[in-house]
């Protein structure tokens, strides 16, 4: 095989684009499209979150908060103030970026898992505010969100949304792969490899961590706003702690420090509950068992473990 095809960067990117392009052949009805769109939106969040968890070695337990803020921000600006979505979405995203910066800057100067605690608190506040400020958010029942209109044309139906989300996911993965392979990305990987060694070659660890924290929050906010416009309705459940945990689990299950792992993790954890409905009341038990089994037998996560297996099975190399 041509070497560049086999590289994770180019080969993986082409495989992803091919998968997005060919998947509609297998999507026989709108319900399948809906699941595929949700996979794509979750995957965008996870690609961003993986930069933070997998590469910078920091845990956020509040990314559903950023997701929710993006969703509610865009929903309120369009629904209550009549802004066009194309203006509301960037403004909501910028506001989330600013908030992430303000939270991250003091916290990320500290070592350890302070970020996890701070983001946990932030996420809880966001979901409480979303549930109680019913004048703005509709309270626990949620609020309707106007559809996404681009230059006067309303984006309606599953197929256009599929292509929009597919293109954005491909873009998110491409940006993430570029970042990881740049001096900035090496600095991030250096931080998780040895923070002290990274600092003594001149990497300002606090600044790098804040930067990647803001990037990951922006990915979450964009996906949140799109989810709100896509489903036409938003409830506080999307901003809860449980959704934050779900997002972290997707990243860990797919494989930390693997961009494609984040996509696969999002795909598996979004589709599994749909597939497991066959187990009826044992659905959650089956889901838990699958996740435990994966983490016990593939502690590095799905994609890195399978890549290792593939390397072993290659002809000319005996299994270790």
């Amino acid at each position, binding site marked *: 095989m041509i070497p560049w095809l086999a590289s994770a960067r180019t080969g993986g990117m082409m495989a992803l684009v091919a998968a997005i392009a060919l998947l509609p052949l297998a999507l026989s009805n709108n319900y399948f499209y809906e699941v595929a769109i949700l996979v794509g939106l979750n995957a965008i969040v996870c690609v961003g979150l993986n930069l933070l968890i997998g590469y910078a070695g920091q845990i956020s337990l509040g990314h559903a908060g950023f997701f929710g803020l993006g969703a509610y921000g865009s929903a309120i600006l369009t629904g209550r103030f009549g802004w066009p979505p194309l203006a509301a979405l960037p403004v909501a995203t910028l506001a989330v970026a600013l908030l992430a910066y303000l939270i991250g800057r003091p916290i990320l100067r500290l070592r350890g898992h302070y970020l996890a605690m701070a983001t946990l608190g932030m996420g809880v506040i966001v979901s409480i505010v979303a549930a109680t400020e019913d004048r703005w958010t509709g309270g626990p029942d949620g609020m309707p969100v106007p559809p996404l209109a681009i230059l006067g044309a309303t984006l309606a139906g599953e197929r256009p949304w599929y292509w929009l989300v597919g293109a954005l996911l491909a873009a998110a993965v491409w940006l993430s792969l570029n970042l990881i392979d740049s001096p900035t990305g090496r600095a991030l990987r250096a931080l998780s490899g040895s923070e*002290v060694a990274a600092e003594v070659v001149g990497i300002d660890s606090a600044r790098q961590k804040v930067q990647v924290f803001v990037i990951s929050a922006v990915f979450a906010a964009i996906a949140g706003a799109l989810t709100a416009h896509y489903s036409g309705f938003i409830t506080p459940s999307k901003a809860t702690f449980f959704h934050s945990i779900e997002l972290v689990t997707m990243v860990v299950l797919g494989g930390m*420090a693997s961009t494609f792992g984040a996509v696969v993790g999002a795909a598996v954890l979004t589709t599994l509950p749909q597939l497991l409905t066959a187990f009826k009341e044992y659905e959650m038990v089956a889901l838990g068992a699958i996740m435990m089994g994966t983490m016990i037998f593939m502690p590095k996560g799905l994609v890195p473990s399978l890549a290792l297996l593939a390397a072993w099975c290659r002809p000319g190399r005996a299994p270790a």
Partner: protein
Amino acid sequence: MNLLRVEALSREFGGVRAVDDLSFDVTRGTVHSIIGPNGAGKTTLLNLLTGIYAPSGGRILFEDSDLTGRAPWEFAVAGVARTFQNLQVFFNMSALENVMVGRYRRERCSLGAALLRTAVLKRAERACREEAAELMRFVGLGAWLDARADAMPYGALKRLEIARALATQPRMLLLDEPAAGLNPAETLEIVGLIGKLSERGHTVVLVEHNMRLVMGVSDQVLVLDYGRKLAEGPGEEVRRDARVIEAYLGPADAGEPETVLH
């Protein structure tokens, strides 16, 4: 001319003075060794000289700036680089990438350029890769250019850290026991490498407890004991100093001279 001036530097850990009122200068272009028995405060001193610890008292002047109390990355920006006695290698990367990280301050780019992988960045990355490879060859790691860091033997990793430190283009290079844990043949190679660095005009601060290694390569030797300066001067002079011999070997009757003094 002095590159580094340390003035009355102290560091306490809960009442223990690991470095105690220490003053010395390092001259540009020399190899300045810091030796002393285990627990003499050598590693604490290196951590102070790279900003990992903040001093309890005293000042660190480097070139014309006062670096006292600055963060490690600011020491790096000023031109101080180091290696670690207990390896601090980025095991999640390739060997070459470890060295490329050392060029961070020179290669770093805007976030936009990183995300979009611009043509300018691609060219800079190719140059960075080439220079990192050149440094690996210089330290004798030419055979490991395509290796993952976690697949390399201990002796090679020690040299990888030196290459990474050199990649920052330091004005002063601090080596923390570069021969610790190496066999005699590997130790000789390290001594040779330090000689090569010196020939190239690098200013090297070498921390060692093995006096034999130090003697051949050093212009100046500073002997630490209990965080204080015991003696300082050219190697031969220090080696004959009665206080140094006593600190290393204990009172005259208790010594095992072969282990350190040769």
